[in-house]
């Protein structure tokens, strides 16, 4: 589904991603872990189409097509979804209007009829209940004044409503208490399916207790320095990220 080859990415002339290679197949869940500032969000945002990042080398193919040539909205319509590490506040725009506009934009792209107000409300209410979100948040401005947890749930709500084929979750687990974490995990597990792929960017192994990944990659200083199965996450948890800098433990684990 997603094939990243030798991807180099710069911002302000500074190279952040330095030759990423990653293949994610339909039906798989991949976790990307790594210390702060290793480039995880850069990769996630780049895949969603953030234009401030410049690709200096390499390629990204999604469902066999050149992802980098697509606008952010085209990617969204084609099924790429990013749950933001820092969801953006949109003052003055109700969450309901936002969700409706997004859902209908994507439906229109697929030549599906727009959902009418009633069907939309039924759908949203049901999904909100599932992610444990207060319905009052529908009338509030998008993410404005939301607590950290509410913002993250709002991302999962969008994920559930928009039903993408490739979901990238950028630290959706951080800052959540254990109950919220379980709800987020349920939301993600709900989405698992043979024709979907999920990339979980996370700092902690904790989330992976609830969502068992098919593969784990460790990103450090813009490179994937290690890939493995679900167990790799547990090793990381035990040893921390420090060994990555020295490289000693890489050999040790290997």
């Amino acid at each position: 589904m997603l094939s990243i080859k030798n991807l180099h990415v710069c911002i302000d002339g500074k190279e952040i991603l330095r030759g990423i290679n990653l293949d994610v197949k339909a039906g798989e869940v991949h976790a990307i872990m790594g210390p702060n500032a290793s480039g995880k969000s850069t990769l996630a945002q780049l895949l969603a189409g953030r234009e401030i990042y410049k690709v200096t080398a390499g390629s990204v193919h999604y469902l066999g097509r050149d992802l980098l040539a697509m606008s952010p909205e085209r990617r969204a319509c084609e099924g790429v979804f990013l749950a933001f590490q820092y969801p953006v506040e949109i003052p003055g725009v109700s969450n309901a209007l936002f969700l409706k506009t997004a859902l209908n934009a994507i439906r229109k792209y697929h030549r599906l009829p727009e959902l009418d107000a009633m069907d939309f409300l039924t759908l949203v209410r049901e999904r909100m209940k599932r992610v444990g979100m207060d319905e009052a948040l529908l009338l509030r401005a998008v993410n404005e004044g939301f607590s950290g947890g509410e913002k993250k749930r709002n991302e999962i709500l969008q994920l559930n409503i928009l039903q993408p084929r490739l979901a990238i979750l950028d630290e959706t687990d951080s800052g959540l208490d254990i109950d919220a974490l379980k709800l987020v995990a349920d939301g993600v597990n709900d989405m698992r399916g043979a024709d979907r792929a999920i990339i979980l960017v996370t700092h902690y192994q904790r989330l992976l207790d609830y969502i068992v990944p098919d593969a784990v990659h460790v990103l450090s200083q813009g490179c994937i320095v290690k890939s493995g199965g679900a167990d790799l996450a547990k090793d990381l948890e035990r040893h921390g990220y420090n060994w990555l800098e020295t490289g000693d433990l890489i050999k040790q684990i290997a």
Partner: protein
Amino acid sequence: MHVQPQSWQNVELSLVPDALAGHDSPWILAARKTAFKRFSEHGFPTKREEEWKYTDVSLISKRGSLAPDNIPPDAPSEAKLLAWALSGEGMHLMVFVNGHFDSELSTIDDLPDGVQLSSLADMLDGDANLPESLFSQQHEHTIFAALNNAFVTDGAVLKIAPDTVLETPIYLFLIASGHGVAIYPHIIVMAGENSSATVIEHYMGTLDAHNFTNAITQINVGAGAKIEHCKLIQEGPAALHIAGVHAEQSKDSSFTSRSFVFSGRSVRNDITSSLNETGCLCTFDGLYLLDDKQHVDHHTRIDHIAPCCTSREYYRGILDGESRGVFNGKVIVHHGANQTDAHQTNHHLLLSKQAEIDTKPQLEIFADDVKCTHGATVGQLSDEGLFYLRSRGLDADTARSVLIYGFANDIINRINTPYLRQRIEHLLLDRLPQGDMVKELL
């Protein structure tokens, strides 16, 4: 005092009286002439005057004539249609064409007891008891008010008896039709103790013509009364509009002014309220959406004269093209007005590099124990916001429109009259790319 006497002064002076309303009353004639004298002695304000620094009114002095026409044309069909729709909304509707009351298009028959609404021209002609603020120099906040007093054609006088609650808004629909006309409406609201009402003034130009509107609105808010004044300017693209809205508030009263400007070549609104007795609440809201070479100037002034009053001011402007906005928000806390609580914000969104905004909050505090705050921002659409929306499937145009809509919504949401709120929302969205789509989803 500022400009050299010009030929228009002599010409216009002779034109002042004859066919205008009240011409049979010698004292009205005299009052008009005196007002004109005040205006011509001062002349058109120039950019050297601080208050007129950013707004060039020399275009008006270059007009062929300042005098209003006396024979109103038929209302254009577009305006008739809207008038018809408005009466369908159950509004108490008064329609004016080029500043003259059109009784046929108006529906003011079923006013509740205690509410008097009359055409000012009828009052002038009928030698009725006139409100004392009319023709009075003391009530002229700008020199254009003197010009209005000289040439006032017609207008509305609304008198609400104490304890009367007017549930349905009074809708004054003022249409400019024809080319090069000068229009001088004068609106007076006298709200008795504990009364409440909403007055909407809607100015609409139907042609791309160099019309000049000079409007004055005077509002007296009695003790405990609650008056809301909404003004919507939708003038023609070449029109000039210069106006004053001035309130005087008594004890425990509440006055709200909402100013919306969506079109017109050059607009200047002076909006003031004087909080004369304790316990007053004054709220000024404003929203404008400018494009091309439009110029819109709001000068607001809140005078905290009595202690323990509250004022709130929220202005937002969206500027595109080569438009220019001016916001000058004065709050004066006079000596003795202790425990004043005044808060003001203005936010501007610049959508193009050529658009310009001059914004100046002006707090002058001469009392103790006051809470005065203000905040101003000038910014562009947020990149993060645009990306967030696009990452959810909205194309770039729609994403921009949604952000602009959100920016304006802060003011729109506060409009109490559902009809007006929807109208403003639509006026905004009609101007935005893909706005129709957003409109459908609201």
